[in-house]
């Protein structure tokens, strides 16, 4: 059973068909690129998958079960997690707390436990557990020295990394990255590619990636889906896509 499957997925804003008849399947441990011209509907697709928008038609299946109509946080529980095109960190929280928030749905202690912290109770166990996990995760991203920094004070590149780390903290099966390299220079982009590689190797997760930086997309994606005006115009390996006339005409240029 595929990890993610969409069937005839589509959404219309007013008269605009932003995404239509969209069908993809993503299996375990894949790294798929999603490219297309500006306004093609890439971000909108992410919003559909993660429950931010309700599709006007079609279905989204995660491990065979429809997630349409679920709230974004419920979809997180199903194993989808994302980053945003424009970074959305919890700016006035520490780096570690940013990550800890993302463990929320894995925890279960209640209000009474919060107020009466009886030694040995769930509160202590779970908090100690996520503290450890959070620090480990940040260490993997080489951010162990930043745990107590305010997120807003991080340099841009680390903010991007933190956003990815936060998304990973929800322990997703599928990670959706929206233009992680936007605003980065080639050097920083290269580091980002290494980070993504690293995630691939250390986590049991599939990645769907939107990006306009071709060096990144072509460099790491196993397959690429190209959309324009909300519909898929091409699919294939980087090599195939590079040569696809339609893609060159609509997106890549010359």
């Amino acid at each position, binding site marked *: 059973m595929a990890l993610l499957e969409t069937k005839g997925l589509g959404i219309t804003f007013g008269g*605009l068909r932003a995404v239509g008849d969209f069908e993809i399947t993503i299996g375990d441990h894949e790294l798929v690129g999603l*490219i*297309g*011209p*500006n*306004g*093609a509907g890439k971000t909108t697709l992410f919003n559909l998958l993660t429950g931010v928008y309700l599709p006007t038609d079609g279905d989204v299946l995660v491990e065979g079960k429809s997630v349409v109509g679920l709230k974004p946080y419920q979809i997180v529980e199903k194993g989808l997690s994302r980053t945003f*095109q424009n970074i959305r960190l919890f700016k006035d929280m520490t780096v570690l707390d940013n990550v800890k928030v993302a463990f929320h749905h894995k925890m279960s202690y209640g209000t009474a436990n919060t107020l009466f912290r009886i030694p040995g109770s769930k509160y202590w166990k779970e908090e100690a557990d996520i503290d450890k996990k959070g620090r480990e995760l940040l260490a993997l991203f080489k951010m162990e020295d930043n745990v107590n920094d305010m997120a807003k004070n991080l*340099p*841009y*590149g680390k903010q991007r990394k933190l956003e990815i780390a936060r998304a990973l903290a929800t322990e997703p099966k599928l990670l959706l990255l929206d*233009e992680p390299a*936007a*605003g*980065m*220079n*080639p*050097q*920083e*982009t*290269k580091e980002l590619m290494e980070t993504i590689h690293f995630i691939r190797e250390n986590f049991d997760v599939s990645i769907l990636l939107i990006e*306009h930086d*071709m*060096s990144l997309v072509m460099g790491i994606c196993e397959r690429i889906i190209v959309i324009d005006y909300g519909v898929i115009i091409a699919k294939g390996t980087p090599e195939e896509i590079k040569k696809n006339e339609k893609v060159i005409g*609509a*997106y*890549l*240029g*010359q």
Partner: protein
Amino acid sequence: MLKVEDINVYYGAIHAIKGISFHVEQGEIVTLIGANGAGKTTILHTISGLIKTASGKIWLNDENITTASGHNLVEKGMAQVPEGRRVFAKMTVQENLEMGAYSRKDQHNFQADYDMVFDKFPRLKERRKQLAGTMSGGEQQMLAMARALMSRPKLLLMDEPSMGLAPILVDEIFSTIVEINKTGTTILLVEQNAHKALSIANRAYVLETGNIIMSGPAKELLGNDKIKEAYLG
């Protein structure tokens, strides 16, 4: 045309620009490159009068504009395409362009300029009545450029015009920049895409955490190993 002398800029306690000097001559394309947070946007904002300098001077055509109010600089021939487009989302394309011409005294005389920008960006002509906020990233970038051109600038400051754009548009944008420059507009270009920027610029400055660490003709920097390693990937 533009001369910046030893400016220092602070955000509260953060010393963002540490004594920077550079100049842009009439007719040139000059590019500022540098990593995230190096201070590129800050410099453009300072030149445009959005941020005040702590010390140093800025000259536009031999006029000291260090303390001039931002809104007066447009009349003096300076325009900016800001980082992240910053189009007026709830106004139509047409109204955005009218805002671009806001400072011009010849309010009824800019039909020719409409023709010029619509000629350069035909997409905008189709979408005259569309709300700018509903346009795609690339379209908004075109609008931001067109809007700046409506003031008939002699000096155009551009902040990362290629950010977030599809490759095909990136190429288009850069050729448009060259075109604009050819029609007599001097350009100061800030870019992450150092390769593209250097290949169209005359001269370049490299910025690192508030300091200029290198400068020279663009072609030379394009060949420089250190630049290659740090900025060209």
